Structure formats: structure tokens, C-alpha cells
């Protein structure tokens, strides 16, 4: 199972890098979304996939056969943060498109004085 997960994570990272290297702003935003999905899945996998074991230690459950609940708490936090950042990025992209009239990263280079 861990192997499949690592392949999935690697694929997500690969797709994210490909999208982020393109010129269109909206593709870049989708790329950042995929990148954070990859990172979240990595966090889940690295905590160890517990299968059916319970995440709570009670009577009769030893430490060796319970699922670690911490990575899920971490992922929840990370997902909320990346959700907020992505929505901010989308608003920023829309506003920039209105103001600057382009979503092509090649045309967003330089400053007024130093082209």
C-alpha cells in the first residue's frame, strides 16, 4: 500500500511541477493545489498506514497495533491552510487579470524602471 501511495505522491508532484512551469496563471494555481495535495498525502503515508486498527489506545490494544492519529490532525490543519491560500491566490489572480490585462507570466516580468 505504501508503494502505491509513494507512486501517487510522486505523480502529483510531477504534475504540479509541470503545471507550475507553464505560463498561464490559472495552470500555475492548479499546480500549487496539486503540490499541496502531494505534500498532504506524503504526510499521511509517512505517519504509517494503519489499516483497520483503531486510533485510540484502550484496554486490550497495545501500542504496536493502533493507528497513529497525529498525521490526520496535521493534515487537517495543512488542508485548511492550503485551502485559504489557494482561494486568496484565485482572488489575486482575478484581480491582477483585471488590472494588468494579462495572465501570461512572461508579460509580468520586470519593473517600471528596470525592464
Amino acid at each position, binding site marked *: 500500500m505504501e508503494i502505491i501511495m509513494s507512486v501517487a505522491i510522486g505523480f502529483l508532484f510531477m504534475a504540479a511541477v509541470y503545471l507550475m512551469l507553464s505560463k498561464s496563471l490559472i495552470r*500555475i494555481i492548479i499546480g500549487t493545489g496539486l*503540490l499541496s495535495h502531494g*505534500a498532504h498525502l506524503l504526510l499521511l503515508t*509517512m*505517519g504509517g498506514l494503519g489499516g483497520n486498527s483503531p486510533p485510540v489506545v484502550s484496554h486490550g490494544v497495545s501500542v504496536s497495533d493502533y493507528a497513529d492519529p*497525529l498525521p490526520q490532525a496535521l493534515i487537517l490543519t495543512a488542508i485548511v*491552510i492550503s485551502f485559504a491560500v489557494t482561494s486568496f491566490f484565485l482572488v489575486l489572480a482575478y*484581480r491582477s487579470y483585471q488590472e*494588468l490585462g494579462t495572465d501570461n507570466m512572461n508579460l509580468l516580468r520586470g519593473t517600471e524602471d528596470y525592464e
Partner: protein
Amino acid sequence: MSNLLLFPIIIPLFFAAILMMFPKNIKLQRLLAVVGAGAALLSALVLLAKVNTDGVQAVTLGSWPAPFGISMVSDPLSALLVVTASLLVLFVIFYSIPTIGVKREQSFYYPSVLFLMVGVNGAFTTGDIFNLFVFVEVLLMASYTLIVHGGEKPQLRESIKYLLVNIISSSLFVAAVAFLYSVTGTLNMADLAVKIPQIEETGILTVIAVMFLVVFGFKAAIFPLYFWLPGSYYAPPIPILALFGALLTKVGVYAIMRTYTLFFTMNVGFTHELLGIIAILTIFAGCVGALAYFDVKKIIIYNIIIAVGVILFGVAQLNQPGIDGSIMYLIHDMLIKAALFFLIGIVAVLFGTTDLRKMGGLIKTYPALGWVYLLTAFGLAGIPPLSGFPGKLLIIQGGFEGPQFWGSIVILATSLIVLLSSVRIFIYAFWGKPVETVPLKKSTFNQMFIPTVILVAMTVVYGVGAELFMPLISGAGEVLLNPSIYIDAVLKE
């Protein structure tokens, strides 16, 4: 167990939340922002006094036993940085009142500044690596708002790049945390410091240490990850730039300092040598930029990068003078960068441009401004007895005691370049043929100039009275060099 160390984080959060309710009432916004930042500064000072007398303070939220809950830890280093950061936020608010403009003030400017303060103080105080990620995100979110605040075209264009760089570094942060958790099974910094020396396979830990260096390096703007900084910091107005230049990169520097002294010490020969080499390259990269531009903002922005290199070189030495020196220089740099940005802000307002070639002769009309600027420039370069000197002296001494003595020579030589770059502003803007200046009301000028002068006076006191601050600094250095003090304070409540 003392909740005191949470106050510098909770007070600004509380005030920021209140300020969001009535954005249009400027007078109340200004008043409450000053009161909030002032109260946070006061609590930070009380905290520093307590840490100084009673040793490292730690609290684990929710009263869980230490490695399980989220620990907040205040050792002398973090208390000192919290005090400095709170002080600077207060000064930036004072300086913002005449400069930032009514329109921005009415659009949640002060709440954003206070939220930034929450993130910065939280990142300096936390004792948990994932919680560090959360606080960094809090301060980044506030900084996204501030960098695009006002919505001018250059701001929008640069914000996109700033946002993208930080999203990538945040994702890498989560990935690095994941690797660290799978290897050690804990994220509490004190617990990590106990567990990491027990792990025999240092190879994988070295990889993780370098990953964290990349993550924090994006934030601290080290070579070669500094590329985003000059463009992004150039876009926002001066008060925001001062806030960013003084605080944001320093969070990254602090994080490197903390992780590279507390637990990533299993392979010092590789990781710390790498850090030292990168620090020197960072200094070179900053010097090239500082000399290349004829734009006051750009020159000082590149000086941020140089200072990051100097501080990290001291950390990389991992000996007592090196660490003491970096702590001293870190605080000096936070103060002096804010003062410099304030000063060039006034200069830029007077000339209506930031291009040095269109300036000249300001010493005739504003002599006080000229002399204060010259004093600050000398402080930046580290001319004794001003504030840059004691820190740099200790860092250089640390370098000569370690294997990277050539780094110390580079730092000595580049001090001259720092001096040249900052004095060049003095020569172009204050000497030469007087250029017509934008008329500025005396009261507005004073509103900008008085906080600046007080801040410069503080840097002078910090430099001349370095001996007074030395017990605090070496106390902070002692905790960094002896992780057992930190570990005991957190784990043996």
C-alpha cells in the same frame, strides 16, 4: 508553567479582531493599533524579565504532558526577539500614521499589521515544529494582504510571485515535516533533541536537515533562494517594506538558528559547513546587488540579504563567540533595517522618486536628516562604537576560532562594500547640487522624523551600551549551545 509567554501572541490577535469591526473609523483604528502593539511590547518586556531571572519558560497547551501537547517555549533568544519584534511593530505603526494614506488605513491596514505580529511572535515562541509551520502561515497570510494592500499594478504583479514562492516553500515544509515525523516519531523540538542523537542512521537525518535548510532558506532569503526578495519587497510602500525587511526574513533566520543548534547537530561536519559556505555566497550575492543599483530602496533591500549571510555565518561556526555574535547582530539588524527604511522613506517622499541620480543637496535644507542618516549608515557598516560593531566582531572571532577562517576575512572585506553602498546614498542624496524637493508640511515631516530618530537613538544605545546587553545575549547563546537547558525546561515540568 506560566501563561505569560502567550500574551505577546494573544494581545495583538485580540486587538486585530476588534479592529476588523470598524474599518472606517481611522482615529480609533490608530489608537487601538498603538495600544495593542504597546500592550504586547509591555507583556514581552515582562516576559523577558521573567526569563532572565527564572530561566527558560515553557507551557504545553491543554495541560497535556510535554511531548504530546503543543509546547510553547520562551528561552532568552526567543524572548529577546519577541521584544525586538514588538518594539518594531509599534514604531512601524507610528511611522505609518503620516505615510500610509487614509485609503489604506480604512482598508484593514492596522489589523493586518497586528496579525503579522501574531505570526512573528508565535513563530519565535513555539516549541513544536508543526506549530512553527502554522505560525509561519499566519504571518505569511498577513504578509500577502500587506504586500498587495492598495492594489497598485506593480504590487499585484509582484504579489503573484511572492505568493507562488511561499506556497512552494510551504508545501516543501509540510513534506520535510512528514519525513522528520516518520524518522523520529515526534515533532516537539525538545523531544526531537532527545530522540535524534539516539538514531544511528545519520544519513537520512542529514537529508532532512538540508530539506529544512531549503524551506527556511526561502523565507530567510539565502543564496540561491533569495531571487524573489528584491522584486517582491520593492513593490509595497515604505512602512510595509520596513516591517517586512525587519521581521520576515528574520523568522527564517531564527528557524535555521533554532533547528541547527537544537537538534540538527548529528553531522556538523557536513550541514554546518554547508551553511557557512551558503552564508558567504549570500553575502557576495547581496553585495553585487547593493552596488549595482541606483535606487535607494533596492540598495537597502540587498543589504537585508548581506545581513542574513553574516548572521548565518556566525550560526554555522557553532562556538560561543559565533553564536553570541549572531544573536547580537540579529537584533541590531532588525533595529537598523527598520531605521534605514524609515530614513530612505523620508528621502523618497522629499524627492518624489527613489532614483539616486535624480537626487541631491538635501543637506542644505534638511541637515538633521542628513546627519541621522550618516550615523545609521555607519551603524549598518559596523563602525565602532555603533551597534553593528560588537556583533560583527564576535562573529568574526567565532570564524577565526573555527575551520572557516576565510569566511571571517570575507565578512571583514564586505563590510567596506556595505559602507560604500550606504554612504553612496548619502553622497548622492545629501551632497551635490540641490534638486527641487516636494514641499512637505513641517508637522508631517516631524511625524515621520521623530519615530525614526528615536529608533536610531536606540540602535546607538544598543551599540555603545553593548556591555549592558551582553549578559542577556550570552545567556541566550548559552541555551543555544547547551540544548539540555532547553530540553529540561520543556520535558521536566
